[in-house]
């Protein structure tokens, strides 16, 4: 795998937006499997694909692009070590930028035709790269693996961006996944056809039902509802 790569994370979170988006990215670009993340803190399981056992958290690559996607809910007790492992690995590969994609729960999601995308950044200079692809989050809390990945990126002085599309909280949201991929395209130049995500949205939601249920359990253990609160201090 080349050095200086762009790493994109798709971990189970709000609306499974990250998992749906990065799975679509991996299959659309026909990215190759390059490795996996193993930990005793993860559930003792393998995912069978075409009859072969696979790790539930795998790394894919193509040229200078790498992607990490998880097919199992990340247990709350594994979040710290997972974030740590991802950023240390990105650092070892001299990653140019780490982009995590996910969802941001909004109560009126049913009434939103085109989900807006928001971004959290490690560095003000990244606003230029972001352009008009997403609106920068100015104040608020982030909870979960992406929050820690962003913090670890700061520690390692790696550029980190988290892209969050407005989404349902506990229902898989392929439309939000398509929206976040639209923003990713503007930042990275990776062009993707997201029509499958939209046309097969109902089947995708049905297929993702069980992982969504397990993810919701883990989100409540992480106090994900904290994200609705307003921080008391000024930056």
């Amino acid at each position, binding site marked *: 795998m080349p050095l200086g790569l762009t790493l994109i994370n798709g971990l189970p979170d709000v609306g499974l937006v990250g998992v749906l988006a990065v799975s679509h990215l991996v299959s659309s670009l026909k990215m190759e499997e390059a490795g996996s993340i193993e930990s005793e803190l993860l559930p003792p399981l393998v995912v069978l694909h075409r009859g072969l056992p696979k790790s539930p958290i795998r790394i894919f690559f193509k040229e200078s692009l790498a992607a990490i996607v998880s097919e199992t809910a990340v247990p709350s007790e594994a979040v710290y070590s997972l974030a740590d492992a991802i950023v240390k690995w990105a650092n070892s590969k001299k990653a140019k930028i780490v982009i995590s994609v996910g969802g941001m729960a909004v109560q009126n*999601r*049913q009434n939103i035709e085109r989900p807006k995308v928001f971004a959290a950044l490690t560095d003000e200079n990244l606003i230029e790269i972001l352009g008009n692809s997403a609106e920068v989050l100015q104040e608020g809390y982030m909870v979960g693996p992406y929050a820690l990945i962003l913090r670890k990126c700061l520690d390692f002085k790696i550029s980190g961006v988290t892209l969050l599309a407005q989404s*349902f909280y506990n*229902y898989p949201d392929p*439309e939000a996944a398509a929206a976040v991929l639209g923003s990713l395209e503007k930042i990275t130049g990776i062009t993707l056809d997201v029509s499958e995500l939209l046309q097969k*949205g*109902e*089947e995708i939601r*049905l297929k993702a*039902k069980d992982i969504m249920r397990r993810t919701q359990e883990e989100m409540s253990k992480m106090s994900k509802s904290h994200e609705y609160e307003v921080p008391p201090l000024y930056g």
Partner: protein
Amino acid sequence: MLKPRRRRALDIVNDSGRHARKLKNETFRSGWDEVARSIEPLSSVTVGAEEITVTVDLPLVDDKHVKVQVHGIDTVEVYAKTKRTVRFDDLGIKHRSGEFTCYHTLMELPEPVDGAKVIHHLKRGILEIRLPKLRQG
């Protein structure tokens, strides 16, 4: 001295039923009922000041095939027929054969509601049920 309230036989039967459903849901997380050919959808309950809002994720369902019933003052039942028979095979599940033609769920509500004033609608595949809280006294 306070006397312990004697539970009615119906309460005990209802509690046993709830416990059995909970146990079944914990054991078979997919919520598939082979006999009824139904599956339990994802759902959530939000308590507001005036009403309780229940949402249910119902992909592959048309509005006209949704039935919502309120039982008593604290239970809501949702039944929704899918547009087509869904086989596990269609979802990429090969090791287990089976299919379902509807969603079914029975939800206990955290507070009593007025079942006569329930309204519901389906949008973007999400069913929203609004149940006004029961005003007592």
